[in-house]
């Protein structure tokens, strides 16, 4: 139980971090990279811990994690594209 | 067959096959008019032939669905049909209305027909697929409501299964969405909306429920796989069909004056519409592979598997081909559309109705399956019609690609008719494939008259 609470606090912290960066008026890569990384970690927590897919046999975990990675990766690419 | 009242399905199926033959004959007439412009002019102008071809299609499929429902619902509900007499009365009314309408199309100029039948009281005529005169439309509603009453009473008092509930909901949906055809607004944007709410929400919505239920019913019977397994599949398939199909209506809003965002929503959701069709294919093969018994009616099994494959090809693959807005920008209303329309209608709805006929007709004629020879002939007709339809689709697709190129993409775009001349070769080939289709259909009809000892499971 304590583990779940810790993860929850982690999620809140990462959210606050992303929000803080935006409020600080930062833009470009300075926001893009940390925020996407934070999102990746958050997504990973939800998938592995909350959905409890970690340790599940079969392809489910990798499909969902793959979805997250693919979507975030392509978002990063598209935003990078827009900057240049 | 467990219940005497299931027999009412038989005249429905016979009428369906008869009208099917009519549909194909008019298809061939039109196919020839495409390349020999004055063929049968002025007796049967192209626009009349087209109306007869498509209306016969819709009407015979409705006959097929109704027959299927009258067979399937009592068996699933484990009781006799509420009123077989009502079902028979409705059959004759529907047949008379159908035949009168077709004769009206053929022998009375359309404008005169409209005048004679009260189109000035409530204008509903003149839209593709929904050309029927007002009395016919009212007749369809009356027949549908009487059927729904009859079937609903049967289900309410009997056993409720996934199959009969899905079938019933599908039929109710069919009747309800047809009501949109009574509203024919002068505003052309609204007009298109209401038209698609009948046409699209039928074939990519509620008809899929009817199709799923019919397929599941036959698969249970011929494979002996547990009902629980089949029902689970059925639920997932129809849920996917409804979710993607409802919002997927947006793939018809691209260029009709609807807000631009539909190009996004229509594209994404309709791009997912192939999923339920794909699942139906997997479903059919999966069940047949897991079969617990060898059913003597091999032909019905073949039709069931064929439905899965061809529905996926026609609706799923050929639908996807032109459903994304940037593609549809070029393909809209071209021969690509006709190619898709043919294969989808055939692969999904024609084939599922024939699957049902193929399974039930022998039972209604007092045997588990037809004689081996009759089945061989039937399977030949399966291959002839199906392969012919594949070729019709391919030829129309080729014609469509060329047409789009010449008429819409090239530096010096041609006029419509000039482009049509350039692709005439493919229209000839299509007509050839159509003749093969007709031969297949004649064989199919012939297979009903082949006698012999009933086949047994080996």
């Amino acid at each position, binding site marked *: 139980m304590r583990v779940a609470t810790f993860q929850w606090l982690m999620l809140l912290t990462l959210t606050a971090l992303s929000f803080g960066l*935006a409020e600080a008026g930062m833009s470009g890569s300075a926001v893009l990279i940390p925020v996407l990384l934070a999102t990746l970690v958050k997504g990973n927590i939800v998938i592995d811990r909350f*959905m409890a897919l970690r340790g599940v046999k079969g392809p489910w975990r990798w499909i969902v994690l793959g979805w997250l990675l693919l979507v975030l990766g392509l978002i990063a690419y598209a935003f990078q594209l827009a900057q240049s | 067959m467990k219940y005497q009242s299931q027999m009412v399905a038989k005249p429905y199926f016979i009428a369906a096959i008869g009208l099917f033959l009519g549909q194909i004959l008019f298809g061939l007439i039109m196919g020839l008019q495409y390349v020999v412009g004055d063929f049968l002019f002025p007796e049967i102008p192209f626009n009349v032939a087209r109306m007869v071809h498509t209306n016969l299609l819709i009407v015979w499929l409705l006959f097929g669905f109704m027959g299927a429902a009258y067979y399937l619902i009592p068996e699933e509900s484990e009781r006799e049909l509420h009123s077989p007499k009502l079902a028979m009365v409705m059959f004759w009314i529907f047949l008379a209305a159908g035949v009168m309408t077709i004769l009206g199309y053929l022998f009375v100029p359309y404008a005169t027909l409209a005048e004679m039948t009260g189109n000035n009281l409530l204008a509903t005529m003149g839209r593709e697929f929904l050309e029927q005169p007002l009395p016919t439309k009212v007749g369809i509603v009356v027949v549908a409501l009487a059927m729904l009453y009859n079937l609903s009473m049967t289900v309410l008092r009997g056993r409720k299964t996934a199959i009969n509930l899905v079938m019933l909901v599908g039929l109710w949906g069919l009747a309800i969405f047809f009501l949109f055809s009574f509203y024919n607004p002068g505003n052309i944007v609204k007009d298109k909306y209401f038209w698609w709410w009948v046409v699209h929400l039928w074939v990519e919505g509620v008809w899929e429920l009817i199709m799923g239920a019919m397929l599941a019913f036959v698969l249970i019977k011929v494979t002996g796989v547990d009902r629980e397994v089949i029902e689970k599949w059925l639920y997932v398939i129809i849920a996917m069909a409804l979710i993607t199909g409802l919002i997927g209506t947006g793939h018809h809003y691209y260029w009709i004056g609807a807000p631009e965002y539909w190009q996004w929503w229509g594209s994404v959701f309709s791009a997912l519409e192939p999923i339920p069709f794909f699942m139906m294919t997997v479903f059919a093969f999966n069940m047949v592979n897991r079969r617990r018994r060898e059913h003597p009616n091999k032909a019905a099994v073949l039709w069931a598997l064929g439905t899965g494959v061809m529905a996926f090809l026609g609706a799923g693959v050929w639908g996807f081909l032109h459903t994304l807005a940037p593609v549809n920008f070029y393909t809209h209303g071209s021969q690509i559309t006709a190619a898709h329309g043919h294969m989808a209608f055939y692969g999904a709805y024609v084939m599922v109705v024939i699957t049902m006929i193929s399974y039930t007709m022998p039972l209604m004629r007092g045997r588990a399956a037809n004689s081996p020879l009759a089945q061989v002939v039937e399977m030949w007709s399966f291959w002839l019609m199906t392969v012919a339809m594949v070729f019709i689709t391919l030829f129309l697709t080729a014609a469509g690609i060329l047409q789009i190129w010449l008429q819409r993409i090239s530096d010096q775009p041609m006029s419509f008719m000039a482009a049509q001349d350039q692709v005439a070769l493919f229209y000839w080939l299509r007509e050839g494939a159509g003749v093969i289709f007709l031969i297949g259909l004649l064989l199919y009809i012939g297979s009903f008259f082949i006698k012999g000892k009933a086949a047994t499971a080996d």
Partner: protein
Amino acid sequence: MWFFILAELLVFGIFFLAYAFARTHNVELFNASQLELDRASGVINTVLLISSSYFVVLAVSRIRRGHSRSCASWLITAMTCGAAFLVLKLSEFSGKIEAGINMSTNTFYMFYLGLGFFHFMHVVLGMIILGAVTLKAWRGGYSAADHAGVETGAAYWHMVDLVWIVLFPLIYILN
């Protein structure tokens, strides 16, 4: 249920990428419109959804030990968060609509309103599912040995949360 979850993820994924790539053609417009959003409301909603997901985790761990009632209580807590999310979201939307903004205003708002509404409907559906599970749990319909229903409902809710976790930074923060 997992089949649906994957299908849903697929749809949302396509829309997220559509947003990201549509933006490359129109960076200024997207950045300018994004500044008009209420970022604070977005972040509160994130906290609400994350927390509700956490409460659902607690609910699942309770039923694993056979505590039906406390499972139901945590589910109710989670649904309260979900309801708060819906209320906040509605006020955000009504603000925009009063300002005369709709899906045809520009491409950014098409995505913001469209995706937001689509996700909104998923929260509603998730609440309905959780509600049904709660009811059954309260009546003692699940046990330590048999509680697949709770797990399935939880998985759906986490999916709704997961989608929001990507949606929030994408639409409210990244520029």
